[in-house]
């Protein structure tokens, strides 16, 4: 039995204590595989004169050369034939428009399912109650390979689905945003008894709820309804909306309490499921580790300090995703959490690159983006 298998079949997804040794062994095992099967990865490790045998303790993982997500946008790194990758996914390309292409083999997917099963169980996401699903995202299409569309579809299996509605529908060969339809469905479902579950970018959810509030539409969603959000708050930076304001809006418009709002965090280049606790903290599960790196030196900084988020996991075998660096800035907290978990939790502060900085032409470039020419 591989160390990876053992790690992803640990009973408690948040009992980090005592798992460091297994985590390092699983990382080393996968690292060796990648080194032997992915020539580009081998070249990267060699260019840093990295010796895989130096991976002995959890602290040694900081010296494993990481790959920025930016690199995946320009290079396809595969460690096995493409035909073995039964699921292919891309990032959403929100910051640059260029997408990372990642493929997942069956073994990696099975481990991922084991992880999802346990994390959803811990957070009481599984339900046997027939449910209406509303996805603030893309209607699935074979041609749409974004991870966000795949996870949106996957989410509709967390309870027996009575209906599935998508905010971005595929009509006449192209995608169209149709929030009006979602609003009407919410109104309709609020009159029934079956709970409703939503998933999607917080911004879309927020904009719809804000419009409903402006239109004086205030609903009482059936008991057990759940608002889940994922894909980051980056669209919110310009709006200056904080999470508390979002929770208050959900309560006001849909009458759903804060403890029924769940947020997910993950990336196609790091497919570990981070789910916020009742205090809305992303605790680190046993399947991954997080290193925060200094913005000047890229060296690890102590917990509590802000820096670039480096995510590590041995989950995927088909692509060397062992240690990747996102373009998010965050803080790893050690403070005791009111939810009772004592593993560190990750706070995502923003993105590198300053979304609010405008160059000489940026203002006018808005025109282009909005016109989609």
């Amino acid at each position, binding site marked *: 039995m591989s160390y990876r298998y053992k790690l992803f079949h640990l009973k408690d997804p948040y009992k980090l204590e005592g798992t460091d040794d297994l985590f390092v062994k699983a990382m080393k095992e996968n690292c060796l595989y990648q080194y032997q099967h992915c020539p580009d990865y081998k*070249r*990267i490790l060699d*260019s840093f004169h990295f010796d895989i045998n130096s991976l002995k303790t959890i602290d040694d993982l900081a010296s494993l050369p990481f*790959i*920025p997500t*930016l*690199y995946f946008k*320009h290079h396809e790194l595969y460690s096995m034939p493409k035909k073995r990758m039964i699921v292919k996914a891309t990032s959403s390309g929100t910051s640059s428009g260029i997408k990372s292409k990642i493929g997942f083999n069956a073994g990696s997917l099975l481990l991922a399912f084991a992880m999802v099963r346990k994390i959803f169980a811990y957070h009481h996401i599984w339900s046997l109650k027939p449910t209406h699903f509303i996805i603030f995202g893309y209607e699935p299409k074979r041609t749409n390979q974004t991870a966000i569309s795949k996870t949106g579809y996957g989410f509709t299996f967390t309870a027996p689905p009575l209906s599935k509605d998508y905010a971005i529908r595929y009509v006449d060969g192209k995608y169209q945003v149709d929030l009006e339809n979602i609003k009407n469905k919410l109104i309709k479902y609020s009159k029934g008894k079956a709970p409703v579950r939503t998933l999607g970018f917080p911004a879309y959810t927020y904009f719809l709820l804000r419009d409903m509030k402006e239109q004086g539409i205030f609903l009482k969603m059936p008991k057990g309804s759940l608002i889940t959000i994922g894909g980051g708050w980056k669209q919110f930076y*310009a709006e200056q909306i904080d999470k508390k304001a979002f929770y208050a809006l959900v309560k006001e418009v849909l009458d759903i309490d804060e403890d029924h709002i769940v947020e997910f965090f993950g990336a196609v280049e790091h497919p570990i499921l981070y789910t916020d606790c009742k205090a809305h903290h992303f605790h680190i599960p046993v399947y991954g580790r997080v290193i925060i790196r200094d*913005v*000047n*030196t*890229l060296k690890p900084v102590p917990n509590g300090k*802000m*820096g*670039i988020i480096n995510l590590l996991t041995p989950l995927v075998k088909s692509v060397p995703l062992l240690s990747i*660096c996102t*373009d998010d*800035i965050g803080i790893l907290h050690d403070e005791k959490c009111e939810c009772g978990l004592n593993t560190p939790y990750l706070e995502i502060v*923003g*993105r*590198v*690159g*300053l979304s609010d*900085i*405008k*160059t*000489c*032409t*940026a*203002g*006018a*470039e*808005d*025109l*282009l*983006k*909005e*016109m989609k*020419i």
Partner: protein
Amino acid sequence: MILYHGEILNNSLQDKIIASLGDELNNTLAKGYFPSPFEVLEAIKVIYQEVINHKYDNIILPLLKQYDIPESMFVHYASLFSPESLKRKVEIELGDYLNLPSKLDNSTIRERYPLGVLFHIAAGNVDGLPSYSVIEGLLSGNINLLKLPSGDNGLSIMILKRLIDVNPRLKDFIYVFDVPSTEVSSIKKLADLSDAIAVWGGDLVNKAVREFADIKTKIISWGHKVSFAYVDNYVSDDELKALMHSLASSEQLLCSSVQGIYLDTDSLDELSAFAKRCFDIISKENLKLKPSPIAAKGKNALLFYNEILERKSAKGLYLDNGVSVIVKEDYELEASWQFRNLWIKRLPHEKIVSVLKKNHDHLQSVGLSVKKENISVIQNLLAQAGLSRITKLDQTSRMIIGEAHDGVYPLKVYSRIVEKDISKL
């Protein structure tokens, strides 16, 4: 918010106003009046006095704080808008046009007229810039339609409203619309009503405008430009230190900001030695300066690391405390990563024209430092390649009253000459 006949109105009235705007503009033109530059200057004088007497501190001071601009710098830039400065701008830019009408021959006189209706699609990178674009249009007597950039903070509309309050005759010459760029049909309507469109944006924006603008509408493009430094090995340590201050003050976000340094050589060894020397000097100098924002540093650190992966080596790459230097072996002009990142390339002066000429539409300023006997020759080569401003190494973003904008005078560009037969008069 929109500004229509000197009144600030709700956006909901916009479509109705745009629908009937054509007739109104024609009526204004048919009255035969357009403001003279000196009439506009009189109105600006009043607002300038109000600004320096702190009437607008409640708006200006928070903006300075937000963008971390020292008040002394604001006072300096504000002086560029003093009546004396703008009068000088008018005199230099319009030049001999100010002496019109004048005789062309015994039966013909020449007279200056505005282009007519100017549609400004302004960038939002500098607060108040959209109003500056409109003021240039007004100084040349045009009717101005302004599309506010998204995220505009209201400063432009406030300035223009005040201008009309001071001189109500200007109300028929200033219209501000808050049209989202998604409303292509409204933008096209405004473009169709205009004689010229002043666009502040890059190639892609210009391309987009060309696609919706009618063939008869003139497009006047301001930007996007790239600036750089050109040096030889005689460049002093002090000059490089001064350059570092200039990089930090604009974070290389302006069209006039130095993006990289060309060294007058074709030797890669000389290039490497210079890059090392340059980095040692500027990285030390950087420690004396206020650091870049953390997100900018993070972005450049990741780009730097990615460059190491791409190049398969760290040779020719330098990074310390948010300053980075990237040695490149090609000659091509390009933008940097900004926020204190410089590329360093070789470019023997004999190749200046052949390398840079193909970018002629993007060239703006060059900070020059070469040995004295080569200055004239190299200045001439840079000008022939298409550069429009040649300054000291650290002075590419300096502003001088009366200087040209990207090599031309806007007030002249916004004007036209009409010849009239007077033999029967």
